[in-house]
């Protein structure tokens, strides 16, 4: 299946990844190439492990006990193994940003939210922080709406605006990969359309991996799609191929709505 992406530059490569909570293996021998400056969608029914896989990329599982990784996730061009026990998860998270299912702004001002990643990194120069924050808010398509109220609480924004703020917050530190975990599942259709457009615009600057429940969304925004089922990678290919000409029976059944 790697042939499909042969012409692309890889940003990351998942190799024989298995992941378990305690004794329960929830990801089984996953292989997945992530192309640079493209959108890769992870689809599959609830409980198939797509969010679990996404959270391996920024070592979120390390926050909880009895979690265990096997295999490799190589990050290019550095060529480091993200899930290596020798690598500090904080270093991984500084390279890879994440946006969660529900908008989760900090109960602080809009500006404090978008600049938080810089604060964490010990950056104090206020002109730099201001420029970066403005740029991130522009990238997230939020600048025009909030430029006059940067010091108002982030929770005064609407749900869709909050989610774009979370995207801006992740973008402010120039991540190498942006992970989106069902970013529109809690939003209304208009906000969803706004964010989908944003995802397509963003891929010129950042590599995106998106988990989605919504097949149409995967079809609309992604370049390549991976279908997962019960912790296994069933099929991976270009989005066009997965949706028009799936090679596996299970993929076809899922795409056509026979289950899931």
């Amino acid at each position, binding site marked *: 299946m790697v042939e499909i992406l042969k012409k692309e530059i890889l940003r990351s490569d998942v190799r024989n990844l298995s992941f378990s909570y305690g004794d329960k293996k929830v990801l089984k021998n996953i292989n997945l190439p992530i192309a640079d400056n493209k959108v890769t969608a992870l689809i599959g029914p609830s409980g198939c492990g797509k969010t679990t896989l996404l959270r391996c990329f*920024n070592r*979120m599982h390390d*926050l909880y*006990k009895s979690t265990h990784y096997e295999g490799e996730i190589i990050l290019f061009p550095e060529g480091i193994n993200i899930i290596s026990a020798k690598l500090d998860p*904080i*270093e991984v*998270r*500084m390279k890879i*940003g*994440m946006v*969660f299912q*529900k908008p*989760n*702004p*900090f*109960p*602080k*001002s809009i500006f404090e939210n978008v600049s*938080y*990643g810089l*604060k*964490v*990194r010990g950056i104090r120069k206020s002109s730099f922080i201001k420029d970066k924050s403005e740029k991130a808010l522009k990238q997230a398509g939020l600048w025009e709406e909030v430029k006059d109220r940067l010091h108002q*609480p*982030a*929770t*005064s924004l609407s749900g869709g605006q909050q989610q774009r703020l*979370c995207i801006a*917050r*992740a973008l402010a*530190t120039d991540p190498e990969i942006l992970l989106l975990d069902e970013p529109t599942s809690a939003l209304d259709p208009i906000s969803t359309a706004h964010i989908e457009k944003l995802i397509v615009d963003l891929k010129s600057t950042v590599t995106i991996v998106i988990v989605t429940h919504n097949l149409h969304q995967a079809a609309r925004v992604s370049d390549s799609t991976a279908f997962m089922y019960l912790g296994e990678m069933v099929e991976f290919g270009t989005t066009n191929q997965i949706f028009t000409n799936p090679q596996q029976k299970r993929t076809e059944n899922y795409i056509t709505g026979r289950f899931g």
Partner: protein
Amino acid sequence: MIEVSNLTIRKWIDFLFQIVGLLILFLALVTLLSLILDLSTKGLHRIDWAFMTHFPSRFPERAGILSAWVGSLLVILLTSFFVIPLGIAAGIYLEEYAPKNFFSTFIELNIVNLAGIPSITFGLMALGFFVYTLNFGQSILTAGLTLSLLVLPIIIVTTREAIRTIPQTIREAAFGLGASRWQVIQHHVLPYSSGGILTGVIIALSRAIGETAPLITIGALTFIAFLPPNPLGTDQNFYDWIFSPFTVLPIQMFNWVSRPQSEFHVNAAATGLILLLLTLVLNAVAIFIRFRFRRRIKW
């Protein structure tokens, strides 16, 4: 549709509960008000400048509470100094760092147990350990340490409760941006839980300021006609005052109540009012700080 016959009863039960709740609230308020009223009618006229600035005396009309309120303030100051950082740190550790295993469960269980131990037991322990073993004497230091131990569990438990109310999604957002565990605590966990933590601090200090039994046990004096050494004085060390003998408001009050002369009972009522006032002022300060903390946080 299913036939519904109990709607009237359900509404009645709702109404009944409201009435009962209101009555209980009323009862609590009336008790407190009548207590304050009783103390006021007996003691309010006794409170004046002389009462606040005189030492106790065997003549009731000349007696004052200078040493008692200074003692109370200093003891609470030391108690706060020890117990606030210790209690909050312990709460944070147990909630954010400690692994959930047999050992941490054992510690948690014992903290809860500690909160239920009669205060006089703390006094006995302090007498043996702080007064005699560590040779701190019957001092303000011993009193501060004793009361710290007594109210420590309150602060630990309320800190943990407050921390637990912070959604995990907020922590994950911060970790996801590359924050370290301490940064998550410093920038998010502590500020967002400061309201709850300060409520715990208020409860703990209010409890400490009214405690009498453990302080009598460690040998607080009931008749003190001098003040602790002035820390800014020239002929002593800055910290001499913490080794000074002391009395506190509730002990002074207890002492006067147990006198046969009714004039002393008036003094006791007046002291009670001052103690109440001191508690209210401390609470007001804490509420003000809590307000300042919360102002910048909007959920």
